[in-house]
């Protein structure tokens, strides 16, 4: 998997949670929860979906690393070794 493919998976996952959002305009360094109006339940569903799609274990204590698009991609790259 390339980084671009990984980024697309993250974006698709966000699209399922916030279907009305224009993800092309999402600032990659800003807090997803603010930008997409995501609550704790949505964020949990985001983590669950990434866990199921990528088989990555994401402990709760790592959640702060996933609150931006860039942060989530970097975290998952590291976990997946790409």
């Amino acid at each position, binding site marked *: 998997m390339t980084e671009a493919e990984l980024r697309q998976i993250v974006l698709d996952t966000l699209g399922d949670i916030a279907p009305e959002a224009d993800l092309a305009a999402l600032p990659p360094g800003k807090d997803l929860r603010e930008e997409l109006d995501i609550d704790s339940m949505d964020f949990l569903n985001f983590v669950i979906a990434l866990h*199921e799609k990528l088989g990555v274990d994401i402990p709760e204590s790592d959640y702060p690393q996933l609150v931006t698009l860039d942060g989530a991609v970097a975290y998952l790259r590291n976990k997946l070794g790409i």
Partner: protein
Amino acid sequence: MSAFVMPSLGADMEAGTLVEWLKRPGDRVERGDVVAVVDTQKGAIEIEIFEAGVLDRILVQPGEKVPVGTAMATLRSNGAAQEPEPAPPQPPPEAPPEPERPPPEPPPEVPPPEVPPEITPPPEQPPVEVPEPEAKGGVRVRISPAARRRAAALSLDLARLRGTGPEGAVTLADIEAAAVARVSAPPSGRAPGVGFDPAAMRRAIAAAMARSKREIPHYYLTQTVDLRRALTWLEAANRDRPPTERLLPAALFVKATARALRKVPELNGFWEKDAFRPGAGIHIGWAIALRGGGLIAPAIHDADRKSLAELMAALRDLVQRARTGGLKSSELTDPTITVTSLGERGAETVIGIIYPPQVAIVGFGRIVEHPWAVDGALAVRPVVSLSLAADHRASDGHRGGLLLAEIERLLQKPEAL
């Protein structure tokens, strides 16, 4: 023989539009089976039947809008022979009467005077009962419930889909194909209204909340609750759980509220005809904010008897179905109290408005760190603002205070929840 009627799914509902039948005449149905999908102000709702038997005759066709209480189908009890075709109680909906149009005017023998046609009043059309067209889009879409849900999840407009299934039915494959096609299409701003119509939802909320403020003498209580023990316990519990089984504080809030209501049952039920009717079971209406506006509070049945894991699964499932359609009629009619939790991005305190005919709503604000007095010294603790708005006709503030105290007590022993 009994009738399956359009149910009332809330004090504010007057009518519903049948979207589709999920059972056919001759099908055996059990109590609790979903037999039809009805479009309401709160979106498409799966309607359950509360009697076992065999579906006999269908009286309402998809696309028809009928008032609450209208017979939509007849049901034979199990074992009963099919009744001889009775005289239909109303004209069969399959064949609406031909509009009685006035006979065509005979061709005029002299050219009519040249006047704008508006001046001659048109002959009055007799009122004709015709089924209302499909509420949205003007086309009836044949689609399976699974495909409907998928389309809603993807925010696809059903009216614009081309079906390749039997009789042009839209299949799951069609949905996936349309979703792929959309990715390459330019974004078109807001997704078309699927799941629910925001304007209709707004009217439903307006009607219910205006009635509440007009009729219910609310009293309000608030209390700040230390959550250090609860959150420490939650963090440890989640460490060993895969993401699918992790708990949110909301699960603790629902469980503590449900258990506390056992001690103060006069807050769990309905105010009807100048008297309190206790709820049969503790069914928590869980307030869910819908993306794009709107609010719905479907029931978590018997919340006091569910484990935290079961409650968490129920919360996730309800949020998903509230947003994509697929809530069941019993989930809208059964809540005996409402709980609203604002989550990590909400305001610090919420003081609710009761959803009639319920008699109470419990609110949890955002969890925040506050200075907290412990043994005569100051500490910093995560706390939540807990509130109760209750109907003074059904209970007094003293009993309301006991409910909040009990919720607080239960949240100090999360391992026992």
